[in-house]
């Protein structure tokens, strides 16, 4: 059977996609941060599914590849026969090994992941070599620079127009952004100029490549290979600066992965281009075909996307481009990681725009004259850019960037660092995701020696992952779907200004158990000596009824005093409505020991709530995410039933019940989703509702409007149990309950350090939680917010930056000294 080159190209695309996906998985698994926080807990089930089916996908891919190579494998003397046979034999052997011992299942976070990733990108590169030996190279002509210029200018217009067209649809799911006519005009104008600037840089790079090829009197095909080299260089930089930076992966290994991945992608690209150009190559063999009919190097380069001569296909692609752009953004924005996927989608849109406009650009030009005149357009773009920077329409750009990812990407790239800033960011980086080997054992105690107390009320610590305070009726009168929590709050202390110390679960949970900030590391090292909550529970012989999630697993010791309530549920499956009945059963069974309960329910997490459809008949006020609100309604009912149970069992009046979250979540505010690196109020501000035994109420006081942290919960338990916890300084929590005649001021008017769990992003909270200053080294930005009334940006000035940076440095150095690690 003879395969058409186009069909083989499709097969090679599938083959390439498979191996690049395997390589991407391996490289991601190689980064400890992603592996421990996302792959191990199974936050993205699709990845687990991919790992499970990958051996079979390998076999299927290989089978298709073998079928496409049959003519070479079976015909004696066929071009590339020997190398094709070698490839097939080696692949078959690997496929057998993979079937019997699937590597992805067990690679974990080991150097093997790195090695398998490199092997995975080598495989399509090998196949590309095979195909390049089998299929003849098409004859190509030199590229006309004017055509490239026209295509680049048109591409800038197309890219800007595509996002302008989809912006009305995108704005619907974004809150907190007012796109007035003026802002829209300013934003679109800025976007056009910045896109033009970016495409002029591309034009100059391409023309430089073709110029170098011509200056050295190389063949036209050299232009094409130089363009592929440009793809590898640009791809590597994008991988490192965009992808690896977002995954906190840096250094030589990250560069190696970036270059390998970009090289693998370029080899697949070159292979498809070679196969797609075969009809042209065949036509070139016809003597009547002249040089004019040959493709130029850019046409060959864009062949994987479009046949260079098909105007109809190019027009169709241009028409479809807004739909593609919208579909991609809509598909990824809910779980976008630091806008990473949206930015990658911009690169795809740019590539498609360039391929289409290049196909449509004038093809008649052929003679190569001096190209100096072509410098006019880049100079115009330069002048426009300089003018834009002089006008500096920051507000319009910032607001419009929420619906135009291309503008966002260029704007975010527009950050440079002075040497002082670079040094400071390096310092923050050195303090983040610290390796466990660098941390020495250390001890944290609020009370020493810790002896048993007479006061041992049942303690119920309900932590709801990603629960926002403004989705609860005690904090927001517009909320109608949490009546039970409202009832609980009416009988409890409702802290108005509760903040998390960390904007991600991985550090927020250890920080709660410690009662203070913890070393910035993926897995907490030597934790029991710092686990002040566990010490309190053990000293008082509490029975621990717990949901064991992936975060708390390493924090607590498993002994006869611990009961895992949901042993068969994974972290992302922890559901309060399933936990509560089991908890009630346990409470009914045995009450000899005092009881402590802990759970980290995932009901409203962004990886869980969107999968649960809103039951028919349920409606929610405007401004609330219906799926999150619906999940919360269900959770509220379950919590309500538990409170009812406690009342029936006469336990309620004697219990400490805490309802809080590890952090909040962005649900479309200014286009943000999730909580990766954000330090905005919707992420950092948390609900904190504390019910205490009625007999303790007359003995304590609390300032409900004072800034409190989730790290204050454990010291408060100490106080409620009758201890006097020591003040361990600003990095640690302090009880939000004090004896009635205690210090009159409980306000935190000083500065406090807060951090992201996932990277070198730190904040300084000041003025009793009214102001936050954030240094985000991932996006290379610094911002300050005032939350007095409506949250708004405060200008970042040199004195403000200097004061806050100095404070961060000081606090992080203190933290390193406390936990004895060398940055």
């Amino acid at each position, binding site marked *: 059977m003879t395969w058409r080159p186009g069909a083989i190209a499709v097969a090679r695309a599938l083959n390439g996609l498979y191996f690049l996906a395997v390589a991407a998985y391996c490289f991601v698994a190689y980064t400890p941060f992603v592996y421990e926080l996302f792959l191990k807990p199974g936050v993205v089930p699709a990845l687990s599914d991919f790992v499970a089916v990958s051996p079979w996908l390998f076999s299927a891919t290989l089978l298709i590849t073998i079928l496409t190579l049959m003519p070479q494998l079976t015909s004696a003397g066929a071009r590339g026969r020997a190398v094709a046979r070698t490839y097939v034999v080696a692949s078959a052997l690997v496929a057998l090994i993979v079937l019997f011992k699937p590597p992805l299942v067990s690679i974990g976070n080991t150097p093997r992941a790195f090695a398998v990733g490199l092997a995975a990108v080598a495989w399509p590169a090998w196949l590309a070599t095979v195909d390049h030996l089998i299929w003849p190279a098409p004859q190509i002509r030199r590229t006309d620079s004017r055509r490239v210029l026209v295509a680049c200018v048109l591409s800038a217009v197309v890219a800007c127009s595509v996002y302008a067209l989809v912006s009305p649809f995108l704005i619907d799911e974004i809150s907190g952004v007012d796109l007035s006519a003026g802002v829209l005009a300013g934003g679109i104008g800025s976007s056009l100029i910045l896109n033009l600037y970016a495409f002029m840089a591309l034009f100059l790079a391409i023309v430089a490549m073709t110029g170098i090829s011509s200056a050295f009197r190389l063949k036209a095909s050299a232009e094409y290979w130089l363009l592929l080299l440009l793809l590898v260089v640009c791809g590597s930089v994008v991988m490192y600066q965009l992808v690896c930076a977002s995954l906190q992966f840096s250094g030589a290994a990250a560069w190696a992965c970036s270059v390998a991945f970009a090289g693998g992608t370029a080899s697949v690209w070159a292979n498809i281009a070679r196969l797609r150009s075969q009809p042209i190559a065949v036509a070139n063999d016809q003597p009547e075909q002249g040089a004019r009919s040959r493709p130029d190097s850019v046409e060959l380069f864009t062949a994987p996307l479009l046949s260079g001569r098909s105007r109809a296909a190019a027009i169709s692609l241009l028409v479809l481009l807004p739909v593609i752009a919208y579909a991609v953004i809509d598909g990824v924005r809910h779980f976008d990681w630091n806008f990473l996927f949206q930015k990658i989608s911009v690169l795809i849109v740019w590539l498609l725009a360039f391929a289409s406009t290049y196909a449509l650009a004038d093809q008649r030009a052929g003679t190569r004259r001096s190209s100096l005149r072509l410098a006019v357009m880049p100079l115009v773009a330069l002048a426009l850019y300089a003018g834009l920077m002089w006008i500096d329409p920051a507000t319009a750009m910032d607001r419009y960037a929420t619906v135009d990812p291309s503008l966002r990407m260029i704007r975010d790239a527009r950050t440079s660092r002075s040497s002082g800033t670079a040094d400071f960011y390096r310092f923050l980086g050195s303090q983040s995701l610290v390796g466990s080997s660098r941390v020495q054992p250390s001890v944290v105690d609020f009370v020493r020696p810790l002896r048993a107390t007479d006061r041992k009320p049942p303690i119920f610590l309900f932590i709801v992952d990603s629960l926002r305070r403004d989705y609860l009726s005690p904090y927001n009168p517009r909320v109608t779907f949490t009546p039970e929590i409202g009832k609980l709050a009416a009988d409890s202390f409702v802290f108005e200004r509760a903040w998390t110390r960390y904007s991600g679960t991985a550090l927020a949970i250890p920080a709660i158990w410690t009662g203070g900030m913890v070393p910035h590391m993926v897995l907490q090292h030597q934790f029991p000596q710092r686990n002040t909550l566990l010490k309190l529970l053990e000293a008082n012989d509490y029975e621990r009824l717990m949901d064991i999630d992936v975060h708390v697993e390493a924090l607590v010791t498993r002994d006869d005093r611990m009961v895992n309530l949901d042993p068969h549920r994974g972290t992302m499956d922890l559901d309060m409505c399933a936990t509560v009945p089991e908890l009630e059963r346990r409470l009914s069974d045995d009450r000899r020991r005092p009881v402590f309960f802990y759970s980290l329910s995932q009901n409203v997490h962004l990886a869980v709530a969107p999968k649960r459809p809103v039951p028919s008949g349920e409606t929610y006020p405007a401004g609330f995410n219906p799926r999150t609100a619906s999940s919360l309604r269900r959770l509220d009912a379950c919590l309500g039933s538990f409170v009812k149970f406690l009342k029936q069992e006469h336990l309620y009046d004697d219990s400490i019940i805490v309802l809080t979250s590890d952090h909040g979540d962005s649900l479309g505010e200014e286009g943000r989703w999730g909580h990766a690196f954000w330090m905005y109020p919707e992420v950092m501000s948390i609900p904190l509702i504390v019910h205490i035994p009625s007999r303790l109420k007359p003995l304590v*006081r609390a300032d409900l409007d004072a800034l409190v942290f989730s790290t204050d919960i454990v010291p408060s338990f100490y106080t409620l149990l009758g201890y006097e916890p020591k003040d361990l300084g600003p990095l640690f929590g302090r009880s939000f309950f004090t004896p009635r005649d205690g210090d009159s001021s409980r306000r935190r008017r000083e500065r406090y350090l807060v951090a992201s769990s996932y990277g070198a992003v730190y904040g300084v909270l000041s003025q009793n939680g009214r102001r936050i200053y954030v240094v985000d080294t991932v996006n290379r930005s610094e911002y300050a917010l005032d939350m007095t009334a409506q949250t708004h940006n405060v200008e970042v000035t040199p004195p403000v930056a200097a004061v806050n940076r100095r404070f961060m440095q000081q606090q992080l150095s203190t933290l390193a000294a406390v936990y004895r690690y060398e940055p």
Partner: protein
Amino acid sequence: MVSETVLNGWRRWIDALWPLALLVIVLATFRKTSHDSTNQSVAVCEEADTSPLAALEQCLALDPQNVELMTEIGDRSVASGAIDRAETMYRRALAVDPRDGDIHLRLGELLLKRGDAAAARTEAEAALETQPGSLAAERLLERATSHRRADVDLDARRQR
């Protein structure tokens, strides 16, 4: 006389080099116009706790919503006997953050010293709202109430 071949050679090199040169300029301009957030010029006071009163007032002018500055100025005004200035500062602070129990207490104490027991009582009640169980607030409330009662008794005696 320069031959055509040499000219063509030059032309080829010019064609190769100008895009490179312009590309460098484009990228350098992009980098140069990028913002480093610390390179702006307007100053805002952030380390005012230890500054003299005049400096604090200047800082407050630059950061007019800063409750901590207002409180600090209020406290220092009380210490120096500038009661009116202190009251203005506390009231301004409460306009920004009406739920600051500490400032309600400070203002209440100040008002009671001035003899305005009814207003002091209101402040004590406001403090108790955000600081349930606060003994300091309860004591202020008690003193304000008894002071008021004494005032009322005094008025009644005078009328008699």
